[in-house]
């Protein structure tokens, strides 16, 4: 049972344009959501998070949107840069469980 899904395995975007990565979840108990970025042969790096009491959180070029009714979140990267090319994982947790449930990841390629 995949509780967190990233249905697009890959995404290709031109440098300077917007990258939109999507994530869907099924468990209504999830109340905290995170995005991680991962380069090959390295551990994931935390990017940005959002709690269920918000619908938007912004940090520089990265913005995460949460639509609780649709059980959907997205990560916007504007403008996209070649260094953003990596695998992006969304993750969700229910408060006080301390456990993250990850999606399968989306490979983003930003072309110069």
């Amino acid at each position: 049972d995949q509780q967190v899904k990233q249905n697009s395995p890959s995404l290709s975007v031109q440098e300077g344009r917007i990258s939109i990565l999507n994530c869907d979840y099924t468990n209504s108990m999830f109340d905290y959501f995170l995005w991680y970025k991962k380069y090959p042969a390295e551990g994931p790096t935390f990017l940005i998070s959002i709690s269920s009491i918000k619908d938007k959180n912004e940090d520089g070029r990265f913005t995460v949107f949460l639509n609780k009714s649709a059980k959907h979140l997205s990560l916007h990267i504007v403008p996209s840069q070649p260094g953003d090319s990596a695998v992006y994982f969304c993750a969700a947790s229910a408060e006080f469980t301390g456990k993250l449930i990850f999606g399968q990841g989306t490979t983003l390629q930003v072309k110069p």
Partner: protein
Amino acid sequence: SQTIHQWPATLVQPVGSPLSLECTVEGTSNPNLYWYRQAAGRGLQLLFYSVGIGQISSEVPQNLSASRPQDRQFILSSKKLLLSDSGFYLCAWSQGLTYADTQYFGPGTRLTVL
């Protein structure tokens, strides 16, 4: 600042051999510790987590075990490796269990079982 170490970085082991992967965290005390596995082409799967010394919770039945002999040390073990144990193993830590406690990952260990 806090840092997390994992070793070895890569490991090639024959089927049936034992396994020991180590993870240590510096710069914090009483962290929550986690072991994840990323199989080829798949997401990260939580294997074990620990909220304190000697306290281990297993998320999936498998050929692996975990131990926490010291506050900032987390070990992943197996008595006999299977081909299906191949993957990228990641250790992570967090300070608490609330939603504000982000998990931070180590560099990972690439395990290939032949």
